[in-house]
């Protein structure tokens, strides 16, 4: 703990506190957990990226069906490989923290669910989303007929402007009415 405190300067710490929703303790804990993911020689380098595979070994993310999407969304990597720096990691934790606003959470949820990164949730995205939720294997998946019925239902309900996709504002419209969302869209270390 002492080493982490020395590694994270006081200015940096207060800067992170200002820029994220995390408290001091949470940032320190995040730093500790993040440095555990690094190898020995990586620890000395500033701003190291941790590959997605290693990030996904965290128990908080391991069993999440959206883990890869989460990494891709929060990664600032040029190669789009889902690798995270410590600041990306803090961004992730901030969005998933207790005190993040509904707007932030719903925005990131939208981007996580937008599998092809095209700015809307179309039928393909919804299908992938449902498959993630029900489990990926063949026996757990819904049948094609069920899937069709389900997606029709979703679009009928939340596609307000009837253009065949759910866009961000429609998505937030749905989410803002769900009192459970804020409490369940949460990852705490």
């Amino acid at each position: 703990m002492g080493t982490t405190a020395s590694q994270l300067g006081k200015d940096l710490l207060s800067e992170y506190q200002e820029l994220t929703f995390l408290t001091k303790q949470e940032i320190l804990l995040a730093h500790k957990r993040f440095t555990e993911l690094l190898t020995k020689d990586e620890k000395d380098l500033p701003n190291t990226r941790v590959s997605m595979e290693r990030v996904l070994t965290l128990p908080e993310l391991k069993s999440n069906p959206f883990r890869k999407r989460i990494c891709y969304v929060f990664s600032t990597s040029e190669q789009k490989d889902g690798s995270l720096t410590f600041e990306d990691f803090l961004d992730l934790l901030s969005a998933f923290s207790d005190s993040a606003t509904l707007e932030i959470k719903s925005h990131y949820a939208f981007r996580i669910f937008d599998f092809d990164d095209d700015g809307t949730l179309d039928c393909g995205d919804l299908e992938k989303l449902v498959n993630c939720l029900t489990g990926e294997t063949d026996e757990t998946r819904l049948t094609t007929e069920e899937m069709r019925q389900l997606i029709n239902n979703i679009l009928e309900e939340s596609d307000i402007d009837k253009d065949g996709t759910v866009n961000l504002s429609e998505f937030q419209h749905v989410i803002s009415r769900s009192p459970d969302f804020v409490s369940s869209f949460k990852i705490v270390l």
Partner: protein
Amino acid sequence: MCGQASHLLYLPQSEPHQQDLEEQHLLQISRSGVRVASKVRCKVGYFDSVCGSNLSQKLKLLRWWRCLLTLVLYEGRRLGFGHLLLKRKCREKKMEAHPTVNFMRLLSEESTHSSLSSDSCEYYQTEIFDQLPSIQASRPDQNTQGNWETHQGGPETGESHGHLSRGQKDKASTQPLRNMVMCIQGKRDARDRRKMQISNIGFWESWRRSQSINRKRFWAQMRGALLGLLPWQRTLHAIEGRFGVGVKAYFVFLRYLIYLNLLHCAFIGGFILGPTAFYGRCNSSEPLKFGGNDSVLDFFLGSGYLDRSPVFFGFYTRGSLNLLCLNTPLLYLAGILTILFLSLIMVVRRTIVGYKHTWMLGKRYSMNVSYKIFCGWDFTIQDPASATLKCSFIRNDLKLFLEEQSFSLRKAQRTLGQKARLYLLRFVLNLLVLSLLGGAFYLICFATEWSQSESGHHWLVSLVLQYLPPITITFVNLVLPHIFRKISSFEDYSFTTQVNVTLVRSIFLKLASLGIYLFFFFITIAEHQQCRENKIGREMYKLCIFNFLATFCNAFLLNYPRKLVQEKYPSSLLARLSGKQRFLIPFNVLDLVYSQTVSWVGVFYCPLLPLIGTVTLMAMFYIKKFTVLRCCVAEQRMFRASSSSVLFHFMLLLGLLMASVTIGFNLYQQEVTQNITSSCGPFGNGETVFNVMGVCVDSLPSLAQSTLRYLASEAFALPLILAEVIILTSYVSRGRANQKAIERLKDMLVMSSSDKRFLVKQHATMLRRKKTLTDRVRSAPSEEDANLKPPSTQSHPSVRPVHSQTSA
């Protein structure tokens, strides 16, 4: 960067009208799309907030709306620059693939791509879709990155950038940095930009801002510290991780009840215990001592030692505190009334808050499936086993929903004969339920009468006799709900209705059995006893204790051995028969509501009941935690936390109402049948609960007296009711008007969206035509492009200057 700039210049020169056309399209799309969309969203949000949400949310929405509108106003200027960006982005993408290809070819390739997609794909797959302002607005980080680039690109693009960034700054400076959806580096840049702004503003303003930040931090720290004081956070977290939000809601409810009881204890201490301890009692000649013929059994029966102790009503007699408006009876009454009122306010508040959500969610916007999908995953789950479990919940839930949909289809297709048969069946089953309920009530009443009969039996027999009514009630409530569950499965309801019907019947059974018991008890008790209140208090005490004992035994003598058998001999007959244990949330909540109702009924006769309740509830928390974590597998059907917590609080409200009615009824009965004058407790010497206030009022000065009398009279009540009616009517009509407005706005949204789609498609066809055009231009220049140009292009010269400026 330089080469790119020259390409940018190249485009408008080669095809000026084409450029105009696209811009105009974009302009139209943006205007129709964004403005209406933002307006409608804002209005919808606004109306909802009028009907429900709080003021800050409303303000936020309004602010947001304003920002969007300013954004739209700058759209025209920005588009020119955005357009160039598009071209450059596409080109860069292509450049990666073919670094040495020339510009003309690139354009044609791009349009080929678009023409291919415009035939087969939806409009959101066209490349212009990315340029729609509504889409760009949803990607603020990429947006700002783009702006950043152009900002570095050159001073001429900075001109158009300035307008946009001012709009953004407007939006940005109103919200804290952490609320912005961008990565930390982006936030740093934003902060740097903002710092400049602050330095422009001046020393005083910056000092004030830093002060406000400090203040906010302080409050956040305070809140964090207070949240840290909440007990059992870790436990709840663990439970939530394994069993999901629904079971956690049960434990949160349990914790809430503990708080409620603690609050009651504080009031009891302040109003009742404190004055009695301070001023003493009039007949406190013998000190309270455990001895003589007292035994440990008294703690179960509430007799003997406990009868003389402060646990019961009889202890609190009039002490030396004997002013006209400040005496023991008055304080006693005030304490009890405060407790009941406070509970009423708290429970109603919680119910309303939850109900507002479900009401808005259920009735006006049916969005059940969307919730299941969009808010379905519980990101707090860490355990892989519970993750697969959650997957299967969601799958089952979705299948259930689809099944129910087809069920309602089937229901609509029922023939008359089938309907008649079904209704007959339901009628018979309801009769069965009623007769079961009747039997249960008879049993309770029989047990009550029997337990009252005086007899000199062995102590064990008398103990059982004493506990007979609680045992009967608990037994009935243990068995009948399961029978109800079975019965409702025959009634051919949809699954959700089945669960709800069972729950409603169980609630009715639980509260009514308590009510029946109390009723018969009040009637039979009237004949004997010198201290009637103590007797009632003793019964409530026994109910409370027995409820706790039942929970204890259920956990350690039933559930735990069952689990052990299953673990040790998983293949044995007993293990297979008993099956897996599930934590049935509704029935467990019902237990809690029951015990809380008992506590409310008994608090008048047994003022220490809240304290006992707090202790038992705390013990219950650990017992239930043990049961859940050690013995149970998660339930097949998930309970949504929100809807279930509404249900919990609604049940609690029912319990509270019943408790108040019971107390009121009993006091009234006591008042009417004058023959029993209570010989114990604070109300003696002809004083009753009803006239003790009157004595106090009489002693007041005449003005205060008449005011109080006016407030209590019908002359005051009538205007009050009228005013309430008027206010309510105005709210209802406003709500209706808003409802209509929402419908209209939705229609508008659909219209504008179809316009948008039409325009985007039109644009895609344009691109395709342009492609054929450019092909022809390459082979032989023709005049066809002149025909393409619609006359309206000339009417918008205002878009041009931006470009000439850019290219200059």
